[in-house]
């Protein structure tokens, strides 16, 4: 009887697998991530916003209904969760991970208290330029941070690429110069149903009005 119980328990537990999830601690991370003091004094919200939040976070954490990371107050409100999800449990970003440099910037900015302004006067980066109705501006401010994670070679939406020539040549008529109303790109970003791009079902926020307007104006002006 004892032997058979032993065999049953042995079989039961030998089938179980345990793995230990290692959560890094503050000290280890500080050692890995810490920037020199002369770099830390240059950190500001504006720098972090342009280097980390806009390119890596706001495509999902915008108006999609979940955590919003589009402004300084919202980011401060969610700072603990940001630190935890990026550095401790490492669940964010879900796609397009942060580079080592971006991680260092974020870690140090949080560690020095997430200041709005840099401690060293004059080290603030210039504010981002407003989006222009040119391909270069649209590519830099919309496609790269919000679209190419999927719309690029080797990724899920590789069949629809977003170079200027691809937009003009696509049989999907994505950009019809002078005709934004019938251009697939405009229709895709302006529609409000399930087929909107970026896709709501994947957690992405809709483009902002100024972004949509820039795409429309670029195509209206000939998509040069």
């Amino acid at each position: 009887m004892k032997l058979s119980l032993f065999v049953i328990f042995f079989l039961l537990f030998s089938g179980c697998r345990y793995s230990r999830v290692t959560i890094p601690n503050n000290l280890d991370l500080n050692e890995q991530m810490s920037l020199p003091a002369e770099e830390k004094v240059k950190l500001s919200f504006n720098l972090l916003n342009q280097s980390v939040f806009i390119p890596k976070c706001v495509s999902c954490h915008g108006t999609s209904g979940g955590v919003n990371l589009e402004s300084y107050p919202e980011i401060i409100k969610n700072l603990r969760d940001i630190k935890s999800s990026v550095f401790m449990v490492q669940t964010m970003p879900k796609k397009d991970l942060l580079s080592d440099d971006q991680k260092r910037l974020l870690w140090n900015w949080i560690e020095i208290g997430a200041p709005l302004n840099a401690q060293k006067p004059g080290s603030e980066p210039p504010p981002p330029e407003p989006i222009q109705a040119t391909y270069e501006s649209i590519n830099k401010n919309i496609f790269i941070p919000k679209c190419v994670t999927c719309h690029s070679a080797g990724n899920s939406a590789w069949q629809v690429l977003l170079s200027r020539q691809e937009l003009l040549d696509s049989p999907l008529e994505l950009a019809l110069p002078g005709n934004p109303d019938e251009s697939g790109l405009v229709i895709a970003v302006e529609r409000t149903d399930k087929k909107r791009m970026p896709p709501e079902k994947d957690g992405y926020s809709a483009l902002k009005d100024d972004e949509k307007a820039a795409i429309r104006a670029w195509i209206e002006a000939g998509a040069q």
Partner: protein
Amino acid sequence: MKSKLLALAIGILAASQMTFAQEAAPGIVKAKAAELTAHRVDRLVSLNKIDSSFLTKAAKMEVTVVQNQAPAYYKVRVSQTQPASGEALQMDVVYDGNGKPLSYTVLPGGSAGPDEGWTGVDAITLMENGLHYVLENGEKDANVRPFYTALTTITLTKGQLNGKTIARTQMKSSENALTLNVYVNLDGSFVSSEIIK
């Protein structure tokens, strides 16, 4: 004499160019022409140019190669089961060999049938997602390739698979007598595929 020879040479050259133009391999395969039609229907409905039932109640697409009407190369006929009102409709969409849409024509005579009442994504998206299976596997899977290069029809019906309601996209090819069934969930996600005699 010289001018006659020149005219003859130009004539031969022009005739050979026309022959090449007709025989030139298309830039896209038939399955891609059908998939582009799914996008085209969505676009035309978005622009309020065609009956919205082409999106929600599409039931069939037929792909043919257009003869001697360059630059037209493919014609895809879409049939719906029911329009918003009146008789069921069809639509022909004509493409060049690279998939650029050239024209569309709405016609009477759709294959009137039951409204499947798709509750997740629309009928055209279900067809499109079935075609994605063919586009993703047609080059690497010899069994799927006939449906990739020589697709003739794709029909959409509702069915049951393992006790679950699914959409069945059924495809035929001019290269064999087989049928490719691609099963798709009502939300458009892929379930499975099979090739049957």
